[in-house]
């Protein structure tokens, strides 16, 4: 099941002993609710990942929410320009802790090939990012890999002190 601990089965009743941190992290890991902040072509690729072909549901992150108050994973897929930048920052601020951010594609990570007056050269200039996915657009496997990387990261973090400092 993926929880670190001990399992007993005595007289049909299952008992697991573990630490509270472990069970909380286990819950968080396998029920990420992503908010897809899709602004360009990368969002199309993301749709492919959620759909049955690549089936993001296998990793527990298929329940897409379009409200920042109901999601804990901000998935930025597409070009972010200076006009949408403040909106992205505000949506990030509205999400409840704990929250994570995946930056998908060359555009979100670094501005991609749009080095001009309009495009922000990487969303890490306005919000903290946990996992970067390179590619234009990234292959679906890369997106699944990023989700797995995020699982590892959640596992490493202390479960009860996941507050970040943002200004």
């Amino acid at each position, binding site marked *: 099941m993926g929880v670190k601990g001990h399992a007993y089965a005595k007289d049909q009743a299952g008992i697991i002993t573990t630490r509270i941190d472990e069970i909380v992290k286990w819950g968080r890991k396998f029920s990420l609710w992503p908010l897809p902040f899709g602004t360009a072509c990368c969002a199309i690729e993301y749709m492919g990942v959620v759909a049955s072909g690549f089936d993001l549901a296998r990793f527990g992150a298929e329940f897409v929410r379009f409200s920042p108050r109901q999601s804990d994973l901000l998935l930025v897929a597409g070009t972010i320009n*200076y*006009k949408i*930048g*403040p909106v992205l920052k505000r949506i990030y601020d509205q999400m409840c802790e704990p929250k994570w951010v995946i930056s998908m594609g060359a555009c979100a990570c670094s501005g991609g090939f749009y080095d*001009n*007056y*309009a*495009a922000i050269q990487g969303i890490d200039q306005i919000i903290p990012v946990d996992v970067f996915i390179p590619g234009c657009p990234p292959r679906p496997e890369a997106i699944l890999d990023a989700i797995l990387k995020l699982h590892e990261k959640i596992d490493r973090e202390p479960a009860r002190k996941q507050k970040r400092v943002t200004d």
Partner: protein
Amino acid sequence: MKNELEKLDVYLKELGEIHPDAVGKVGQEVDDAVWVVGRDRVLDVLIWLKDKGFDLLLDIAGVDGLHLGRMERFEVVYILYSIKENIRLRVKVFLPESDLKLPTATDLWQSANWAEREVFDMFGVTFEGHPNLKRILCHHEFEGHALRKDYPMMGGQWCSSTRDLREDLDE
């Protein structure tokens, strides 16, 4: 193509009878005919063309000729289309940098509304009489005009405020 040009020649002659000397130069660029019109005559010509059946204003484009070394730095191009005759026509106006003003065409075509806002946003041409002349693409705190040739190509500007969508709907 040949029919179009003949038709446009007829139009040109008819226009000349009502507004003599309104059209300065007549030319051909890529696949569209171009009429160069003076700034003070452009509204007359556009009204006349609309009556003649140019019922679509496809786009309004701005051009910055900073490095072309000509007298007037900017040009504004109206791209018109007549559904009935299947003719396309570009009406071009040259504007000096010191006086970037044009009368609005929003009373003729609704599509001029956003197109003029875009030219205003990118080149700083003001359209007098426009109902809502505000930036359409760049952030409302953006300074300068992004498609001018002397605007730095990578000159991004950090803008921090968000706008309430209701503000836009109210207008």
